């Protein structure tokens, strides 16, 4: 009988262990062997706008696709550190979105190849379902599917890195992606102008602030985070004179129900933008410099 009770207790202990596993992961020490645990406010990072929005706007306002805007796949061999791999994974992710929006199948496949290789190098390829991506590429009549699959996979990478307490890698990927989106919009704006694109570039000041806030909180956690924060200084300085001010008028927000949708139009808000051609040139120069450093 005593023997049986012992066995039951062992079984209970096993069950208890099974449940407590997840909590143990969360309470990891700050340093594990040589690995420094970097826990970042993932929800704040998620707020950074998806680069796909810029590519989407570029297509909608009639800017033609230009393959010279994106990073060449042959550059992958240059990325020999996790820091560079992560930043460039972000770069290629944005390029993938850009190529995909413009239905550039071959360029999309090249970008996916680059993402796969960099993901393997960073040991995060298990989060990326390449089989599903391939299936989505075959559905040429449904480009939305490839967009959904790739963006969802990239989200899974970020969530997986968050679980692994590798928030620094997530931050590098998102910053790389954001820099590339800014590079695409700046390069197109330089060539074509277009007010909507200029507005979008001015608005990136808010996304920049998000990134800077997160980096400022985490820059002391490792040298690469500190370096990335310093590298963004020139872009921060270039954006300093840019001012986007929204004024809320007295009339209420217009809300209506259409079918099973609630529609809200912020007609009551007016925006004043202070963004000169000189500001744009300074931003372009700063972005070009930082991007060259990342992809070079």
């Amino acid at each position, binding site marked *: *009988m005593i*023997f*049986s*009770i012992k*066995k*039951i207790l*062992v*079984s*209970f202990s*096993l*069950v208890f262990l*099974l*449940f407590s596993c997840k909590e143990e992961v969360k309470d990891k020490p700050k340093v594990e062997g040589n690995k420094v645990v970097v826990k970042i406010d993932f*929800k*704040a990072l*998620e*707020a*950074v*706008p*998806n680069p*796909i*929005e810029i590519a*989407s*706007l570029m297509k*909608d*306002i009639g800017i033609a696709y230009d393959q010279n805007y994106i990073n060449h796949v042959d550059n992958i061999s240059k990325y020999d550190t996790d820091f560079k791999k992560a930043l460039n994974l972000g770069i290629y992710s944005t390029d993938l979105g850009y190529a995909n*929006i413009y239905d550039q199948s071959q360029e999309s496949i090249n970008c996916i190849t680059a993402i796969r290789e960099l993901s393997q190098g960073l040991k995060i390829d298990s989060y990326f379902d390449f089989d599903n991506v391939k299936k989505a590429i075959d559905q040429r009549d449904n480009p*939305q599917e490839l*967009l*959904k699959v790739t*963006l*969802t996979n990239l*989200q899974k990478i970020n969530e997986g890195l968050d679980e692994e307490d590798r928030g620094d890698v997530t931050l590098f990927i998102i910053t790389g992606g954001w820099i590339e989106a800014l590079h695409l919009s700046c390069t197109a704006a330089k060539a074509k102008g277009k007010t*909507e694109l200029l*507005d*979008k570039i001015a*608005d990136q000041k*808010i*996304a920049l602030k*998000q990134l800077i806030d997160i980096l400022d909180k985490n820059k002391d956690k490792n040298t690469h985070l500190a370096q990335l924060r310093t590298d963004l200084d020139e872009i921060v300085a270039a954006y300093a004179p840019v001012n*986007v001010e*929204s004024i809320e008028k007295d009339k209420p*927000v217009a*809300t209506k*129900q*259409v079918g*099973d*949708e*609630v*529609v*809200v*139009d*912020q*007609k009551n*808000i*007016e*925006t004043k933008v202070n963004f000169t051609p000189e500001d744009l040139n300074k931003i372009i120069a700063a972005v070009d410099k930082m991007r060259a450093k990342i992809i070079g």
Partner: protein
Amino acid sequence: MKKIGYVFAMIVALFAVTNNVVAQCDVTSYTSKCVEKLKPQSYRFVKSYKVDFQKGKVNDVEYSYVFSRGSTYLITLSNGDAKTQGLRFTLLDTDKKAVVSSYIDETKTFNSAVQLKCQRTGVYYLRYSHDKTSNYCGASVIGMKRQ
């Protein structure tokens, strides 16, 4: 007696494992439903969110995102109920002031999407809550298009 002990322990272990599996919130099908709702109005997929109320232990799930002026966003919802009954979505601005809700108080109706014609770029908060439902798992997707 020994055997009874073993059987009891195994049942407990099996129940615990099964319970753990059931507790997981798999949002794959909900996300697909949300994406489907983007197509008729030509919205492009931007982001998806898991809405997991952890079997009712959590009342609200909140995310944040920078919405941009000049774009129209469609935030779609799905929770296993055909009419998304019980899933309430509220969009809050930078100051956490409510901009719009998927739930209409006057008519007591839940809606499966919210459309925002954005005129102010900024950080917005997407708050999901459950209301008189046992559907504690769902998804939400953001789609966008130019105004």
